[in-house]
């Protein structure tokens, strides 16, 4: 029932690009429709659901308490985890995290962490002894291309809604909060696919299967770039990079307004 013949799709994607068109008629620098649902889980300290076209992501934030790392005794930390749920695609399976899932989590992590949007010092409860860890868990529930941008968007949206749980006797009090998490920036990830020699923003499933190189960049409201990730066996030129950076900054601004 889920038979997909990628080669045919790939041919179609490439042939349309030759005519200057994408198979779903979008402009080369156009995102699919984005739907955002906030606070989808009461038990989460923050959560969001993002649908980017048919790609569907649930992100939730949950704090835990722990000891600060020895080299940052006055700071808490964050951790991003992702699961490509078998709900989301006939090709996803349970098991240890795939390398794709690891890359997804780490790119989302760096896009947020390197923007310095969170003040990890504010996570510290007692120096050297007790600090919050923000666990950001990303669940892919429908896979239709560009998990990177949809996941990063869901993560930053969940964080924007996140409250810090109350701490009593060095334990978290479930369901009680001591304030909102402050975000000084809202980084937005922009991911491009290179297909033949065309570069398109926000590849859908068929485009992802046809792409030979991928590039992602996280951008902030103050026009900074805070993480790059090039992937796949193909290559980019310096000029292509320049162009993608410009588009990502522009599109990042538009997406940030949706938050």
């Amino acid at each position: 029932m889920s038979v997909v013949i990628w080669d045919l799709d790939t041919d179609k994607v490439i042939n349309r690009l030759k005519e200057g068109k994408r198979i779903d008629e979008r402009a080369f620098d156009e995102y699919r429709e984005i739907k955002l649902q906030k606070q989808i889980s009461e038990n989460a300290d923050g959560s969001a659901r993002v649908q980017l076209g048919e790609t569907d992501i649930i992100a939730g934030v949950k704090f835990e308490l722990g000891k600060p790392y020895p080299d940052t005794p006055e700071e808490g930390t964050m951790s991003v985890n992702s699961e490509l749920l078998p709900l989301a695609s006939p090709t996803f399976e349970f098991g240890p995290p795939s390398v794709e899932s690891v890359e997804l989590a780490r790119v989302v992590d760096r896009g947020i962490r390197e923007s310095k949007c969170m003040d990890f010092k504010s996570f510290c409860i007692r120096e050297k002894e007790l600090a919050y860890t923000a666990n950001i868990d990303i669940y892919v529930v429908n896979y239709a291309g560009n998990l990177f941008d949809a996941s990063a968007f869901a993560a930053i949206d969940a964080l924007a809604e996140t409250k810090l749980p109350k701490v009593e006797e060095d334990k978290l009090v479930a369901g009680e909060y001591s304030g909102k998490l402050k975000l000084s920036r809202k980084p937005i990830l922009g991911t491009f696919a290179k297909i033949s020699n065309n570069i398109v923003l926000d590849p859908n499933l068929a485009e992802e299967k046809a792409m030979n190189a991928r590039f992602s960049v996280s951008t902030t409201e103050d026009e900074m770039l805070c993480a790059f990730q090039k992937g796949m066996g193909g290559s980019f030129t310096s000029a292509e990079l320049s162009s993608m950076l410009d588009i990502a900054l522009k599109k990042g601004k538009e997406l940030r307004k949706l938050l």
Partner: protein
Amino acid sequence: MSKKKEVLEYVDKEGKRTDGRKADELRAIKIEAGVLPRADGSAYLEWGQNKVLAAVYGPREVIPKHHANPYKAIVRYAYRMASFSVPERKNPRPGRRELEISKVSGEALEKAIFLERFPNTAIDVFVEVLDSNAGTRIAALTAASVALADAGIPMRDMVSGVAIGKISGNLVLDLNKHEEDAPDAVDMPLAVLPNSEEIVLLQMDGLLKRSDWENAFELGMTGCKKVYELQKAALKKKYEIANGDEQK
């Protein structure tokens, strides 16, 4: 001092529970079929605070092949809780509770499906719990049953479920977490084929009197039938929408 020791009034003189429900009253249930485009069938369900997504893939090839049954399809059911779906963060790896629930839930679906029509295949059912407040295994199974129908898999009947509870000596339907945490609480998840009233899932925790069984089952059956109506309505709604689309 411990919260569990407080003597609580779980059902008041008028028969009202702490959340205002009557003994045989279910929490609000909302079901939507066909919500995940990649899956062969799917459903989203809210049951009180519980929120679950169910997806069905199949009948499809069994890998590895020696797990296949030459006489019928096998049902593989995975119940999982999102790490943030519970008050204290859950380790993302599946725990023993999730494995056991997956086993009995998958078995509960077997009789409802015409498995013998699809030898050597697997019907995979995945359910993810996004938020929880007691009763998630039944919420998941209810959603899974709708997702199976949505996938067009031929079924003898739906599987409809509810949990029967006992608190402060009263049999009630569909415990919430506050009630489930009562010191003398009994929790009895039940799932049936609503038309034949056959029991396909039954578990129980707590201390129950022998004489309670018949009443508990009867109460549960009325709950299951209410759930059944909601399941049918969700499928009908999707069918109407699909039909409407075609007629446009």
